[in-house]
Structures are given as C-alpha cells and as structure tokens.
C-alpha cells in the first residue's frame, strides 16, 4: 500500500483508547531579568496552553489524523479536566465516563518555555485516590461500539487508570473481535500482559521493563530481544534521535533511522507514534510499514515546539517530498555532470561524427537497463532523433535475443558481446559500452576485443567506472554510485549526443516542420 493510500484509509478506522489521561500545561514566556532574591530567571508569562496528555493525547492525535476515536476515562473530570475533555469532543473524540466514577484532579505535566527553549518540567500527580476502573461500565461502553473497532490503544503511565482487570477486558474483546492491540506500556506492569499486537517503549522504558522481567540488560538491543521472547509479541522501541527499532520473533532487529529534521523538542512525539501505529495496523498495514510512517510522523512533530500534532496532509506531503527528493537527486547528478563531463561528451560527439564521415558503423551494448539504453541509442541513430536525415549505420548487440541466448548457451554469458564484436566490428568502427558498475564481464571482454580490432571504444559508466575507463578511448563517468541515477544521466547524455550530431550531419533544407518532430522511441 502506498503511503498516500494508507493515510487515506485512516478516516475509515475506529480506534479505542484506554488508559491514563493527564493534563499537559504549557507556559510560554520571556526571560528579561533575574529575580532580586536569587540569580534565577524570571519567566514573564506570555501565553499558556492546556492540552490533553497521555491517553487523551493519543486519542486527539488519532482524531487529528482523521480516525474515529473512543476514549474511555476511568474518572469523573474536575473543572480543569472538563475544559480539556470538552476541547477533545470538539476535535471529534467520543468520551465515556463510567457512572459512579469518583471525581479526581487529573495528574498534570507542566512545561515551561522561554524563547522556544524548554527550561523546566513540573509534574503534579494526583493523590492515591485516583479513581479505579469500573469494568461493568467499560464492558457496556465498549460492547456498544466494538463492532467497527479494529484497534485498541492501551496507554499506561502508571497513574492508576490501567488495572489488571481492565487489561483482561481488552484482551477478551480482542480475542472476540480480532482487534489489534497496541500497548504503550508502563515497565512495572509488563508482567500483566499475556500478548498484544505490539508493545511500544522508549529506550529507558525498554531496559526498565526487561529488568522488571528478570533480565540483566544494559542496551536497547538486549532489552528488545529479551522482551520479544518473554512477551511473545513484537516490540517497538523509540530511541529519540536514533529513530526506532522493531524486534520480532525469528527476525533480525529492524532499525529505522530518524528523519534528519531540525528538532524543537520531543514533546508529544511518542503519542503521535502510538496513534499512527494504531491507525496503520487497523488499516491492515504491515508492522514495518506502520513503523516507517510513525517514524515520519515523529519527524513532523519534533520539529514543532511543545505538544504538537501531525495531520494526514502532512504525511502525504512527506510522501510527495520523497518523490521530489528523488527528482532533486537526479538533478543534482546532472548538475555534477555539467561541472565535470562537458568536454568528454563533446569528444564522444566528435568521435561518432568522424566514424560516420569515414562511413564506418556504431555498435552499442549493455546488460538490463543498460541494454535498453544501448538499444535506445542505436534506434535514435538508425531512425531519426528530431530532424529528418539519412539513416545512420548502427547496431545494438543487446537487442537480438536469439543471438544473445545462443552465444550464452554455447560459449557462456561472458562471451555474448565479444562474439558479436568478433563477427561485426572492423577497424574505424565505434563501440559504445554501457555498464553502470563497469564490472560486467561480458561488457569488459567485448571492449577488450573491440580495442584489439582497432575500433574506437566509448564507455558509459558511473562512480569509479570499474575497468571500463582503462579499456575505453573516451569514457563518460556519471558522478554517482546509484544505478538508477547513473542510468537517468546516460539517457540524457545519449539524447544530447544524438541532438548534436544530427545537427551536424543533417542538411538545412531537410529540416522537418516542428509539429512532426520527435521520436517514438
């Protein structure tokens, strides 16, 4: 599934979110002076923001990505919480509060910023009277809606909303409906879980969780391996600037490097990752694809200061950016070609013109994509490129599959081109060899023979060019190590050569009207 198609699926997903909800308070200010009583900054507050945190923030992330979200809250909200939850409702999150749940002040995490720099974080946890779950209410809430729910997120920060009881309910639901379960787990509670579709941890949590399960681990890799075995489920560990790693049964750990973006801070990035993972798994994406997209979402979120969200169009834009990145890469290679290879291209044009002035023939060959490029070149010569002119003698050694297969069969593949050179090439002919690596045996062998027979040898290659430059009178080396980028430049150079030599060889009165120009090849 293409990223854009996957993102488009988000709006058809319903996700259940259960777990610890808290308030994220953000205070933004300026520091203009120090306090008179001690040399510490005075942050003059300019603005404040209250945002849902924890499970509520995962729910909001899902809603912002277009998904339908059900958030189960095991408490009756106080005034500040009400304000947060009302905002969530208007973002499209459906919230259920069990009847009879005790009112409780939500835990709060306050971040203080000055000039987009975070200074301090202050936690305010509610007392031990955090409302316990009321499973009967949970069951009825969920069973009313579970029909369409394809994934659930369990968000456990250890603030008390996630209990063993609640987990058992989610598990039985998942067994009944085949629902995917993504767990953002508290390390102390890992022993409560039998299995899940995916467990997510940050680096520190993964190590803490593995230790909790009795493993003496010090690194994320060790922790991931240990957790994967013990939990019998895939593990995804987020590692901040290092990206993320997936640990799956019977597979090598798969590392997904972080996107290189300027980072404001990582606030909220974990919640966005969880939301994207749940939406992707609900939409039927594979775990690696879900993780790739979640990693990209994290890249979007960390670039924004404070708690931030990612929107579907931003993910699609990232996909488009990938396309434009590839085009820019192709352009970049051509740009370097301009800087390095103009005299070489000119020499090739001169050599071909001389070959035709002496009534000799041009031959070309290569393997795979380079075979196509070689034949493309020959077709432009025998047919026409843009201007009407007489036919030019040229032959591709790559386009006759009967010759190719018979020679390969009888003499081995490395002789496929050399045998043809032996049959056709005469002194004064020009032989053009296409090989991006410069290492194809059959190409090198044919060049060697052509040189011995007194032909002019021209190489189209890339990177270091392998042995091709040594065997060629003229060699166009595309300054890139990436095969497709090299081939794209080969095609461009072939077209340029054809255009230049055709201008030189055609008579002015033979120019065709413009609308009939162009090659079908």
């Amino acid at each position, binding site marked *: 599934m293409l990223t854009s198609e996957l993102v488009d699926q988000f709006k058809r997903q319903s996700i259940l979110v259960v777990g610890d909800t808290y308030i994220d308070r953000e*205070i933004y*200010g300026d520091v203009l002076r120090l*306090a008179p*009583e*001690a040399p*510490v*900054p*005075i*942050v*003059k*507050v300019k603005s404040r923001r209250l945002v849902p945190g924890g499970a509520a923030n995962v729910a909001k992330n899902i809603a912002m990505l277009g998904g339908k979200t059900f958030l189960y809250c095991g408490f009756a909200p106080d005034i500040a919480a009400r304000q947060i939850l009302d905002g969530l409702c208007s973002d499209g999150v459906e919230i259920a509060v069990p009847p009879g749940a005790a009112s409780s002040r939500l835990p709060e995490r306050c971040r*203080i910023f000055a000039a987009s720099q*975070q*200074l*301090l*974080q*202050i*936690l*305010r*946890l509610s007392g031990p009277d955090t409302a316990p779950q009321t499973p009967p209410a949970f069951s009825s809430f969920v069973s009313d809606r579970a029909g369409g729910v394809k994934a659930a997120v369990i968000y456990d920060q250890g603030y008390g909303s996630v209990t063993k009881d609640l987990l058992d309910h989610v598990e039985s639901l998942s067994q009944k409906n085949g629902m995917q379960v993504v767990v953002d787990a508290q390390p102390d509670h890992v022993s409560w879980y039998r299995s899940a579709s995916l467990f997510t941890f*940050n680096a*520190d949590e993964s190590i803490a969780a593995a230790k909790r399960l009795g493993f003496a681990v010090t690194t994320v890799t060790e922790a991931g391996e240990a957790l994967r075995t013990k939990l019998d489920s895939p593990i995804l560990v987020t590692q901040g600037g290092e990206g993320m790693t997936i640990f799956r049964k019977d597979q090598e750990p798969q590392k997904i490097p972080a996107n290189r973006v300027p980072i404001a*801070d*990582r*606030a909220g*990035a974990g919640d966005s990752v969880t939301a994207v993972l749940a939406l992707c798994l609900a939409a039927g994406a594979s775990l690696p694809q879900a993780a790739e997209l979640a990693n990209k979402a994290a890249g979007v979120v960390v670039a924004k200061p404070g708690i931030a969200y990612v929107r579907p169009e931003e993910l699609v834009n990232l996909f488009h950016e990938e396309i434009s990145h590839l085009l820019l890469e192709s352009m970049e290679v051509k740009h370097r070609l301009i800087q390095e290879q103009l005299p070489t291209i000119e020499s090739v044009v001169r050599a071909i013109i001389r070959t035709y002035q002496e009534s000799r023939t041009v031959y070309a060959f290569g393997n795979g994509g380079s075979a196509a490029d070689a034949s493309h070149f020959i077709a432009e010569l025998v047919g026409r490129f843009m201007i009407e002119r007489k036919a030019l003698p040229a032959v591709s050694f790559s386009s006759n599959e009967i010759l190719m297969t018979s020679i390969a069969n009888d003499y081995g593949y490395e002789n496929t081109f050399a045998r043809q050179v032996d049959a056709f090439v005469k002194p004064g002919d020009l032989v053009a060899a296409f090989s991006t690596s410069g290492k194809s045996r059959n190409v090198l062998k044919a060049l060697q023979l052509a040189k011995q027979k007194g032909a002019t040898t021209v190489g189209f290659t890339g990177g270091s060019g392998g042995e091709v430059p040594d065997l060629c009178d003229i060699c166009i080396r595309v300054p890139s190590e990436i095969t497709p980028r090299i081939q794209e430049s080969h095609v461009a150079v072939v077209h340029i050569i054809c255009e230049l030599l055709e201008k030189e060889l055609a008579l002015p009165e033979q120019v065709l009207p413009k609308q009939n120009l162009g090659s079908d090849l």
Partner: protein
Amino acid sequence: MMDSKKETFDRIRRFPSAHLLVLGDVFLDTYLDCRALGVANEAPVPLLEVSRETSFPGGAANVAVSLARLGVQTHLIGIVGKDSDAHILGQLLRDAGVSFYPIEASRPTIRKTRVLSQNHYYLRLDEEDESPLASDQLEQFLGTASKVLPHANLVVISDYNKGLFTPRSIGAMENLFAEFKLKVLADLKPQNISAWRHLDLITPNLTEARVIHSQAAGSDTSQVSETRLAEDLSTLLTCDVILKLGSEGMIAASQGRCLARFPALCDVIRNSSGAGDSVLATIAAVLACAGSLPEAAGLASVAASIAVSHEETYAASSDELIQAVEGFNWPLNHMA
C-alpha cells in the same frame, strides 16, 4: 522613659480604632515546593514533582494583611482577573480579616510563582499584564474608593507599576483624597513619583531613593550619603521620608532634617521578602493613631525585625510588637 513606652503601648492598643484604605497592585505569591526527579526524557531539563503548593497575598495585599495583623480595620481595593487565582486571593484576604473590594478586569490576577526544591531556587514565573487599566475598570475602581474613603483615616498606596497607577488615574485619586483631606503614604516605583502632586510620606529603599533623587535633583547622586539623601528627598518632594536600608536599618527625615536613624534590630535574617510591607503598614498604623515620625520609624524597625526572623513571609501582630518593645529601652536611641 516608662511614660514614653506606655504612650507607645497605648497607641498600639488604639490600632483597632483606625480605618485605613490600601490602594494598589495586589497579587498572589505562590511557592511550589518540589521534589527533583531527575532529567526529563524528551529534553535535558530538570524534572520536578510538586510536593506542596502554598500561596500568600502579595504586594498591596500583603500591606493590607500586615495592617490587619496589627489590628487595624483594613480596606483594600485592587485589580484581579476573572480566574481561580482571584478566588484564592479573596479567600486569603478574608481569612486575614481584610475588607477586600476586588475590581474584576479582563487580565489575569497577578501571580508570582517561585519554583523551589529543598532550598534550591529554579525560577520565578510572573503572570501579569501591565498595560494601563481600561477606563470603565478605572471608573469602577474610583467609584469604590469614593464609597470607602469617607470612613478612612489615612490612605496607603502600594504601587508596583502594574498598570493601575498612571498619570490619569493618579490625578483622579488625588482629587478624591483632597476632598476627604486624607494623608497619603506611598511605597511606589520611582517612575511614577512625578505624577503625584503631593504625598505625605514615602518609604523607598536605597536604590529607589537614588533614582528618585537624581530624577528630582537632575544630578548624579551616587556619592551623596544616605542621611543626606533622605534629607534632600524630603525637601525636594516636600514629604516625609523613611529610607529603608535593609540590614543597615532605616532613616527618617522631614523638611530637610534627619529625625532618626535606627540600626537593624535583629541578628539573623531568615527571609526578608514582605518585610518592606510590614514597615509601611506599621508606619501607617502609628501615623493614623497620631504618633510621631520617629516613633513610627522605631516601631517599624521592631516590626521589620520580627518579619525577617521568620522563614516565610510574615507580619508582626500588635501583641508581638508590644512584647518586642518590652525588650528595648524605649524610645529607641534616635541616632544609633
């Protein structure tokens, strides 16, 4: 000597008969006592957990609380926001026995939050909007003042330059004070002093006094002695001056003459925040009960010594004042 001490005690006992009106910038002083948990995982900044949150009335509200502690019948008019901090401040003032007339404005209640862990001070958060007060809210403020003023013996101004006092509002307030022929004592920021036509007494600290002096005299005053500074100010501004010198005590000057200089009366300073408010309150109470300037300054020194000997913001009660005065030769040596 005994007569003088008795006279002072009688005056302190008459504090409850005085009605004082405090006008000024009220705020909430909040202390967040935290436990340091380590470093936050999303950014390398300290991660704290609140273990105790305590709030105290600050600014003009603390002056009012100090007056109420002395037994004075205290009225306070100040600007608050439509928020929970206004509710907390109102409750604290009610508990302290202050008659508070809050004027609700479309700005947050001013709050200074100090974030501490053990005795380590991380930062202070100031929530305030210092833009000038909207005219309808100023009208409301003046309307409330004109209802309370007929009952007042004296006015105390506590100006922290938070938008309440502007040339316009000061002019309107002075007209009201003149109507009721009330003495005005002020603790104010130097930048607003030129807007006042007449004040009866100011209580600057040394830094403020030098700024006011150089403004009024138009010359560099950094070399002028402290006594001379107080004397000059009393002439230049034609008002009495109590110059607060912190651990160096205080100087009282009137009409170009130094009337008294007292040293600080305590050895250990535990917390000096709010001590200035206690000084202003004590002076106001003494003057409202017809005491002299040296007597007011002497009692203010005693009040300050009680305030700074406490860990948290504290104001002396009239009983504590009497008890402390018992320990001194009274009146205090004017020129210690």
